[in-house]
Structure formats: structure tokens, C-alpha cells
């Protein structure tokens, strides 16, 4: 389900268009652009809702918000890579998994990782 800007404003109660446009300008929300109009997928709507809650409910100010957002995006980026990596390891035959596991334990237990 995708929403256009007006639907989005309606969906996220009390969100002002000025606010939304500011977030777009800052690059905090990046909807798909098709023929000049913005299309908000469910993930974008959820992100807009999150921004709204952080701003309005948690009253996080304009300087702190991008910091939180950046950390969140980094966490999700890392989580996704980690999940892919774990999946890739999981697809290996048992003896390869065993070797990775041993290497992992050895590295995790040593003090100098790099």
C-alpha cells in the first residue's frame, strides 16, 4: 500500500505539511519519486510516524533528532548486514560452520581483535 502526500498527512494525525516538507528537505524521509510525485510506502509511513512521535510526544528537538536518526539507521544497517552474514554462515555445510564458529570464539576471546 502506498500513500501520496495528502493521504499521508491524513494518516498521521496532526502532522503538518510544513513539518513533512522540512523532513524531506533534511533527507530524513525519502519517499519514492515517480513522475514528480512522492509515493510513501509502508516503511516510509512508519518512519514518518516515528519522526512525528519523537518530535511531538517525546519532544526531541531539532538538533538531537538527526543524531538519533543517524544512529538508528546505522543500527539497522548493521543489523541487516549481520543478519545476512549469519544467514550466509547458516547456509554453509557443517564443517565450514564449525570452522567459522571456532574462529569466531578464538577472536572473541582474544583481547586484540584487529
Amino acid at each position, binding site marked *: 500500500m502506498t500513500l501520496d502526500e495528502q493521504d499521508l498527512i491524513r494518516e498521521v494525525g496532526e502532522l503538518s505539511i510544513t513539518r513533512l516538507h522540512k523532513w524531506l528537505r533534511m533527507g530524513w524521509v525519502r519517499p519514492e519519486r515517480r513522475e514528480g510525485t512522492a509515493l510513501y510506502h509502508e516503511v516510509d509511513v512508519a518512519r514518518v510516524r516515528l519522526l512525528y512521535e519523537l518530535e511531538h510526544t517525546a519532544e*526531541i528537538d531539532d538538533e538531537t533528532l538527526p543524531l538519533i536518526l543517524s544512529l538508528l539507521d546505522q543500527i539497522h544497517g548493521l543489523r541487516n548486514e549481520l543478519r545476512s552474514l549469519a544467514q550466509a554462515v547458516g547456509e554453509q555445510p557443517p564443517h565450514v560452520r564449525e570452522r567459522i564458529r571456532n574462529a569466531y570464539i578464538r577472536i572473541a576471546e582474544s583481547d586484540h581483535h584487529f
Partner: protein
Amino acid sequence: MLGVAKTASADEIKKAYRKLVKQLHPDLHPGDKKAADRFKDVSAAYEIVGDADKRAKFDKGEIDAEGAQRQDPRFYRDYANQGGAKHYDSQQGYADFGDISDIFSDLFGAGGRAGAPMRGRNVHYRLDVDFLTAATGGQQRITLPDGKQLGVTIPEGVADGQTIRLKGLGHPGRGDAPAGDAMIEVHVRPHPAFERRGDDIVSELPIAIDEAVLGAKVEVPTVSGRLNVTIPKGASSGQTLRLKGKGVKGKKGVYGDHLVRLKIVMPKTIDPDLEKFMQGWRESHAYNPRTE
């Protein structure tokens, strides 16, 4: 649930709720399953006590906490954790891994996955360049759409339609990946006197009738300045003189030539002297250039 007394004021409740949202919002705890439950309970509680009417009903026992629970909204993390938010994900988290980060680039860069570090896109511009600047090279300022000014070095001999690449001045890359390039397509404005053919320059040189007959030394403008050129005795219109290496610098660093096409121009008025001379000359020296 909110940790406030039954007699708390609306402001106190709001403050307590705000604090709990910061602590418990599931999106601030991407991997914590319990965060969602606690947050839901807190939200439900606030739904009731944050609303004076509902609070009164709740206090009188007309509604319970369950009844007020709003529909389960999906949090941002629900999408992000399913890989649905790749265009927001940031991969800046392992830039400091040294050699290990190469393994990640190998793994994630190869497939060109959306979430992996990705080189920034190129930006395309169009730049109108003066004919002589294109021929001899130079500096030109370009104003980018965002208002920024950029000094562009026009390489000597740049041709119409050629693209100048400014490395790293395009869109920023994602993660560790480099930025894209600025691609500047050059449009060379025509010149009133010079025409470019490959690396050669062609121009027309008007000469007087006496210069054509007797030969002469005349000044010829070229892209690199004026040159003294010898017009051979008996020159014809359309005849071309080749000035070696006076064209523009080619791709291999070799300069093209400047071709000067002669054009005999009659005096504005044919004076009696010239007319009389020609009549006498014709009687004894007539020739037909159409049969030769």
C-alpha cells in the same frame, strides 16, 4: 504504569509519559522484543489518563486498561528489521574495521545490493564555452543548481559535445563508497570568423586584387594570436594556405592546422584607371578560367 500518583496533574502525567516514550519507544530498541510490550502498556495507560474524560471513566471503573488499547501500529523497526528500509540504512558502522571492512565490501559490494556501500550518482551539467576558450583552454565558473559556484578548468582543445569529468563532485556515496562525479557536457559557442573541423581551424582571408596578383605578406588571426602569412603571387579565391600546427591541440597532444581560405575581394568601386588597364590587358592577355 506511568509511575505517577493518582492525583497527578495533566502536566505531570505528560512529563512522565514523555520520559517513558524516550526510554521505551520500540524504535529506539530495534532488537528488544520486550520494549514493544512495555511501550504498548504505557501508551494504553496514557490514552486513558492523558485524556481527562477517559481518566474520569477509568477512575470510576467504567473502562479498563485493556479496553483502551489502541490498534497495534507497526513500528518503523518492524520494516527495518525485515530489510524493508534499505534506502535508509547506513553502513558507516564498520569503516574503522581496517582490512576486515574489505571483506564486507567484497560481500556486500559485489552484488550491488541497495543497502551496501554504493558509489554516489553522477551529476550532469551543461556548460556553454566560448570558442576561443575551448581552443586554448582556460577557467570558467559554473553555478550549480544548488547555487554553489564551481571553477571548471577547460582543457585546451575541448570539442563541442565532449564531457569533462570532475571526480567526486557528484552525489555523495553511501557508506564508505566514493562520491559520484560531476559530468559537464561542453557546448562550444560558434565564432564569427573561425570554424572548427576536427583539430583544424578553418577561416577565410579576404585579399585585395593587387595582393592576389603580386603576392603579399598579411596578418592572419589564429586562435593563438595573429601571424604574418605570405600570400603567394597569383593567388586565387578558394585557394587554401595551411598554417602547420596552428590549429587546436588534439587528443594525442598533437596540434591541428589552421587552414586559410583566400577570397579575392574587388575594390568597392572600379575606378577608371583599373577599368582602362583591364581593357588594354584583355586585348592581349585574355584567358578563360572555365576551360583550364
